[in-house]
């Protein structure tokens, strides 16, 4: 194992300790308002940012294919008309089909 790889592994493990393990051992006395904030508002904010981040990252690679496919995923998820596997298969299929068509 090269020293550079060892340093990389150590850095990523320390990161995991800092951002994932330590917060689960921190206990705070929370008011009802703060509790609501942590249970409802903060997760909602995180999921909105997940969605925007994914759309941005994928659109920067293949704008038309990614936005068309992800828009479809969004509509299906909001209307709750199909499950995760079917949606993933359809959306991924449409993405790669559009990529092929657009790069012909």
């Amino acid at each position, binding site marked *: *194992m*090269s020293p*550079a*790889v060892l*340093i*990389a*592994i150590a*850095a*990523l*493990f*320390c*990161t*995991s*300790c*800092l*951002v*994932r*393990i330590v*917060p*689960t*051992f*921190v206990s705070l006395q929370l008011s009802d308002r703060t509790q609501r*904030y942590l*249970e*409802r*508002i*903060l*997760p*909602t*904010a*995180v*999921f*909105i*940012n*997940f*969605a*925007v*981040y*994914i*759309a*941005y*990252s*994928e659109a920067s*690679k*293949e704008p038309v294919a*990614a936005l068309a496919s*992800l828009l479809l*995923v*969004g509509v299906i*998820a*909001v209307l*709750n008309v199909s499950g*995760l*596997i079917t*949606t*993933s298969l359809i*959306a*991924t299929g449409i*993405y790669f089909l559009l*990529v092929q068509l657009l790069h012909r």
Partner: protein
Amino acid sequence: MQVDSEAIAAASSQGGVLRRVAPTALAIVPVSMLFGVLASRADWSLLDVVLISLLGFSGSGQFALLPLAESGAGFFTMLLITASINSRYLPIAYMSSRRLPRAIGQRALLAHMLGDEAYATEQEQDRPAAVWVIRGTIYLAWVLAALLGALLGRLIPTAWIGANVNLGYPASVVLMYLSITQLRLRLFEPGKRAAQALVAVGLCAVTALLLIKLLGPVYFWIPSVLLATAILKRAKL
């Protein structure tokens, strides 16, 4: 009411949890395999790939460290970058900590196995046993796929790995679906003001997009999540 409790019980059973996590675990396989292939091409050994997947367990972090390790970056540079990339886990880890067992070792291990996909798959009412199944399945899939990728990276010719094939796309689709589903469940329940929720979500999304443009996709997370919480709080959702 009875139907609801039956549905929750079914989703919480061992089989139900496995059915819930299986698509997600499958979707991350190509991403982790791609990491294994690229690491193998960068002369990382199989042990290196397995160790970083086990101890690091971070897609974005692992991909970011590949070129950094090659360029000889120092420990603190790598720590700063990976901590920034993964800073979103701070609130997620804190919020999901109530689902974890009390025993210190198990709690720490399950916390380490937290990922975006696991967080989006888990539900508020999940017990530690369900969390074990969800996080353990995704974690194992991640590590094994990286090992498989590293093995393939040694065997397949370079030309076969098309530079234009976006192997990470299925994982993006899964995370998008799970995120939107979580938003629908949280914001668009019967009796809630849907129009107000839509406006607030739109405003949060535009803010996030502006911050990505301004700060970049690595450093936008914390300010963007904080601003989004302020907007949602003001909208009284």
